């Protein structure tokens, strides 16, 4: 099973991306987690450029989503919402809506922040966007507050968060399993 992991942060030392690296360590046998690093290469969405085929980086992103059995998204919280770059990439991926790459795709959303609330509002926004795109949004609700205290040099040191990540992944894989069985 292939899981595409998407971080909404572009920062090299991002806590959010570090959580995805920790998630990859929790992958059970037979599950491959690929962390996508192409977010910065997606151009700003412009309806005039939304033709077939779209920009090469957009098509590559759409193909990765299509080929994945599930998608695991981690987002920081900017102004009570998700980063513009992440929303922009999803807006590209959502076109055309009726046949977009995220349609019926099992997805899980987690968030992290330096504050106490862990990005719960960003996570809610991201779930809303993915739902509107037609994704199969799982019941995962993990918001990692004070994220910088739970990481050391980019490595997750908090066992509780590690356990929660493994649980979130398990929920996502269970959601993806019936689709695989039917394929």
């Amino acid at each position, binding site marked *: 099973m292939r899981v595409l992991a998407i971080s909404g942060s572009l920062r090299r030392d991002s806590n959010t991306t570090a959580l995805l690296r920790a998630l990859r360590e929790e992958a059970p046998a037979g599950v491959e987690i690929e962390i996508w690093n192409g977010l910065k290469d997606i151009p700003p969405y412009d309806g005039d450029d939304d033709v077939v085929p779209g920009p090469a980086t957009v098509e590559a992103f759409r193909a990765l989503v299509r080929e994945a059995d599930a998608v695991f998204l981690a987002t920081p919280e900017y102004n009570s919402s998700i980063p513009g770059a992440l929303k922009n990439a999803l807006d590209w991926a959502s076109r055309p809506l009726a046949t977009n790459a995220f349609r019926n795709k099992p997805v899980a959303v987690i968030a992290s922040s330096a504050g106490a609330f862990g990005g719960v509002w960003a996570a809610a926004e991201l779930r809303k966007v993915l*739902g509107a795109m037609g994704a199969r*949004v799982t019941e995962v609700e993990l918001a990692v507050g004070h994220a910088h205290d739970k990481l050391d040099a980019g490595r997750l040191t908090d066992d509780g968060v590690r356990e929660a990540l493994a649980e979130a992944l398990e929920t996502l894989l269970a959601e993806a399993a019936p689709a695989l069985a039917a394929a």
Partner: protein
Amino acid sequence: MSTTEQQATGTFLADPVHSHVGFEVPYAVATFSGEVTDFTATLADGHLEGSAKIESITLRDESLSAHVLSPEFFDAERHPVLTFSGDVVRDGDRATVEGEITMKGITRPATLVGTIVGPTVDHFGATRVGLKLETVVDRTAFDMKWNMPLPNGEPALANEVTLKADLTLVAQEA
């Protein structure tokens, strides 16, 4: 016994050309409606069975259709069919059908009420029964919880959805 009080014995199948199945739901300031074009209904000795293919829900906008078929609403990929089953109780031209409706894999009791006409022999010699029924369901009970607040804070989409079936059922040869 008058014509309207005759019992519709035997098996009758819905004539899809002269039948209509659809829904209505209050949305913002008006009523939003749609229809299902691929459905079946069978009335056999007073027992009504119906099914509708979710993919055939017809709306006038492709993106809206995509949203309605998505996991936030019907989840057509995993739950492609809506079914109903119940017994028709006739009182003159009034019909009540106590039964169960299954949508999105969830089964709930439902009472359909409306009118029944016939059996009547049509101009081609076929025997027809008309059943016009509706019921109101709470969509959230079927795990369809999407909403969006209007600027005044009220939800854009009502939870109460009226399901409607206007059926012409034709007697099958024994």
